[in-house]
C-alpha cells in the first residue's frame, strides 16, 4: 500500500479563531486506495480540520494538497477531486432521491448519459434504487444518511472526506455505510474518515491519527498504535482513594514485582492504571488499595485497544 501515491497531504495545518487554536500544526498524508482515520473526542478539531481540507474554511497556516492541487491556491482543481460527506445531512428533502444525486452530479460537471448511468449505479450502491423517485423527507434516518453519502460520491471523487458519517445512525445502516466506505476504498479512492468511535477506526482505517485539543498525539497504523501499549491492559477502578494512599499502592505493587505498572489518571473517585496481565494481579492490587485505606466500588479491565491508547496518551476517555 505504501507504494500508492499520497492523494491527500496535510502539512502543518493550523486554524485559529482569535486566541483559540482549533487545529494546531496538524500533518498527515493519506494514500490512494486507503482509509485514513482521524480519531478523537468531540471538540478535538476533527471537523475543523476536515472543513479546511474541503475548502470550507481557510487555514490560518499550513498547506493542503488534494490530488496534487493546493486547496487554497488552486481550489477549483483541488475540489474537482474531492467528495465530501458532511457530518449533518446536506440533501434536499423536498427533491426526489434521484434528483438529489443528479443535482450534485451536475455540480461536479457530469452530464447526459454518463450522469444517468452513474446515478443509477450509486442508487444501487446505497440501496435506494427502489425508492429513487420518493422524497427523502419520507425516508428513515439511515436512508437519508445513505443518500447523503451517495451525493458525496456521485462524481467518483479520488479523495473522499467523511465527517463522522455514522453519528445518529442505527446499527444496520452503520454496517451498510461501512460497506460503502470499503467499496470506495477498494475502487481506489483515498478516504479521510473522522470518528470518535474506536471500533469504527479499528475496523475501517488502514492508518490513523489520534487528535486531541487540535493536536495529533499519535499516528500510524492500528497495529503500530496498539504496539505503543506494549500489550498492557488498562484497569479502571472507582471508589475512595487518597493521594498519599495511591503513592503507597504504586510503591507496594512495584515492590511485589509488577514493574510495568503505570498510573495513567487519578481523581479522588477514580483511578486508572496500566499494566501487563492485569487480571493476574487483581488480588494484589485490591489488597494494596485496602491496606492503604482506600475502598473499591467498581472495577473495569480492558485489553489493549485504541481507546485505551487514547486514555494512556491523554488521561481521559475518548468519548468524554
Amino acid at each position, binding site marked *: 500500500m505504501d507504494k500508492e501515491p499520497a492523494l491527500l497531504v496535510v502539512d502543518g495545518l493550523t486554524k485559529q479563531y482569535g486566541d483559540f487554536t482549533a487545529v494546531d500544526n496538524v500533518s498527515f498524508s493519506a494514500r490512494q486506495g486507503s482509509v485514513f482515520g482521524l480519531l478523537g473526542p468531540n471538540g478535538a478539531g476533527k471537523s475543523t480540520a476536515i472543513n479546511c481540507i474541503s475548502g470550507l474554511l481557510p487555514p490560518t497556516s499550513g498547506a493542503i494538497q488534494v490530488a496534487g492541487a493546493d486547496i487554497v491556491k488552486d*481550489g477549483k*482543481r483541488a475540489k474537482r477531486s474531492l467528495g465530501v460527506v458532511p457530518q449533518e445531512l446536506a*440533501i434536499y428533502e423536498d*427533491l426526489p432521491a434521484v434528483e438529489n444525486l443528479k443535482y450534485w452530479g451536475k*455540480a461536479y460537471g457530469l452530464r447526459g448519459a454518463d450522469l444517468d448511468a452513474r446515478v443509477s449505479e450509486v442508487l444501487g450502491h446505497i440501496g435506494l434504487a427502489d425508492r429513487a423517485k420518493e422524497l427523502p423527507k419520507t425516508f428513515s434516518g439511515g436512508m437519508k444518511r445513505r443518500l447523503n453519502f451517495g451525493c458525496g460520491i456521485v462524481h467518483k471523487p479520488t479523495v473522499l472526506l467523511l465527517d463522522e458519517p455514522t453519528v445518529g445512525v442505527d446499527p444496520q445502516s452503520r454496517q451498510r455505510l461501512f460497506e460503502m466506505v470499503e467499496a470506495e476504498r477498494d475502487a481506489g479512492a483515498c478516504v479521510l474518515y473522522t470518528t470518535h468511535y474506536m471500533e469504527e477506526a479499528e475496523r475501517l482505517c488502514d492508518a490513523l491519527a489520534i487528535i486531541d485539543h487540535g493536536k495529533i498525539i499519535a499516528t500510524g497504523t492500528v497495529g503500530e498504535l496498539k504496539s505503543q501499549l506494549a500489550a498492557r491492559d488498562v484497569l479502571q477502578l472507582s471508589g475512595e482513594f487518597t493521594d498519599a494512599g495511591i503513592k503507597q499502592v504504586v510503591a507496594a505493587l512495584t515492590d511485589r514485582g509488577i514493574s510495568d505498572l503505570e498510573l495513567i489518571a487519578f481523581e479522588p473517585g477514580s483511578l486508572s492504571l496500566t499494566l501487563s496481565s492485569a487480571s493476574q494481579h487483581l488480588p494484589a492490587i485490591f489488597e494494596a488499595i485496602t491496606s492503604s485505606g482506600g475502598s473499591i466500588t467498581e472495577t473495569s479491565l480492558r485489553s489493549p485497544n485504541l481507546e485505551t491508547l487514547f486514555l494512556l496518551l491523554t488521561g481521559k476517555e475518548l468519548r468524554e
Partner: protein
Amino acid sequence: MGFILASIRKDLARWSRSPLELLLWLGIPLIIGGLITAMAGGGNGAGPNGTLLIHDQDESLISGFVAGAYGQGPLAEFLTVDQVSLEEGTKRINAGEASGFLIIPAGFAAAFLDEEPVTLTLKTNPSQTILPAIIEDVTEILLDAGFYAQAMFADEIDRIRNSDTDAVPNDIFAADMAVRVQGKVDTISPLLFPPAFDITIVEPPPTEPQPDLGLLFVPGLVLMAVLFSAQGLSADFWAEREAGILQRLISAPGQLNRFIAGKALAAAIIIGALGGITLIIGFFYNSVPLSKLPPSLLWITVSGVGLFAWFAALQMLFPNRKSANLLTTILLFPLLMMGGSFFPLEALPDWIAAIGRLSPNGFVASRLAIELKAESAWSFDLNGWLIVIAMMASGLALCAWRLHAGFARR
C-alpha cells in the same frame, strides 16, 4: 450553463411542491383587489336596486298615475314597484324587504280634484339611505307637479269634476278636453321648452382627466403579488443553508455564482408567472390593450428579481432564520402601504406619494402605471430600466458576497 439549468429546475421542482405558498402570494392581491373593486362599485356590475311597495286604496286614474310614475324613466332602472295589500306591504317593510311603502288613501283622486288636503303615507326602510331618499324626493316632486297641474288645468278639472263621473265620457267631451289641454300645453311650451330664463353653465376649471379607478389599483396590486413572491422566495437561501446544501456547494468547484444565477432565474420565472396572472386579470378587467402586456411583464419580472435579490441579501445579513424572516416581513408591509399596493399613489397625499415613489416597489408601480395609461406600448423610459437593472445587479452581487463571505457555512 448546465449547473445553472439544474439549479433552475431544482428550484422550480421544489416550489411546485409548495402550491399553498404560491397560491397565497397570488391570492392575497387578488382578494384585496376584488374587495377594493366591490367597495368602489367599479366594473360593469349592477347598480343599487330597491323595491317600492304601493298600496292603492283609491284605485282611481289619478292614483294610478302616481303609482305608475315611480316605474317610469331612469327610476325604473333601480326601483321595482310592487302593488301590494296593506297587510303584505306592512309585513314586508317591517321585514326590511323593501326601500319604501307608499299608501295612497281612498278618496285621493276626489281630494286632489277638489283641492282638499289629503295625506299620502310613505314608510321608508331605515337600514337603507340612498333609495328611500330618492323615493321621498320623487314623491315630493310628484305632489309639486300635481299642485301646478291643478293651477294650470283648473277649468278642465272643474269640468271633469262636474261631469257624470260614473258614466263613460262621450267622444265629444273627451275630444274637447284633449283640445283644451293641448291648447294650454302649446301656450306654455315656449316658456317651458326652453325655459323662459337664462341658465349660464359655468364650466369648472379644466382639471386633469379623472383616472379610471380600477386601473389605478392595478400597478399596486401587481406589485403586491411581486413583493410577496420576492420575499417568500428569498427565504429559500436560509432553508438551503440550514439543510447544509450551501456548505456542500462550497466544496464543489466554483459553483456558487452559478447557483445564485439559477436561483435568480427560477425566481424570475415564478415572479413573472404570478405577477403575469395579476397583470392579465387587470388588463382584461380594465380593457388595457394587450400590446402593453409584454413590456409590463418584462418590467415587473426584472424588478421582481431585483426585489428578490435585495430581500435575500438582507436576510443573509441576519444571524438566524427567524430574525431574517421577521425583518423582511416587517419591511414588507410599510413597503406595500407606501408603494401604492393598498391605496394607489394617485390617491395618497402628495408628500406621501412622493415618498412612496421613492420606495423600490412604488417606483416600479408608478412606472407601470404610466405604461398602462400611455397612448402606446413600451413607454418605459431608459432611466427606469437602468435603475431596475442596477437594483437587480447590486442585489445579486450582495448575495454572492454574503455566500462567499461565510453565510454558506452553517
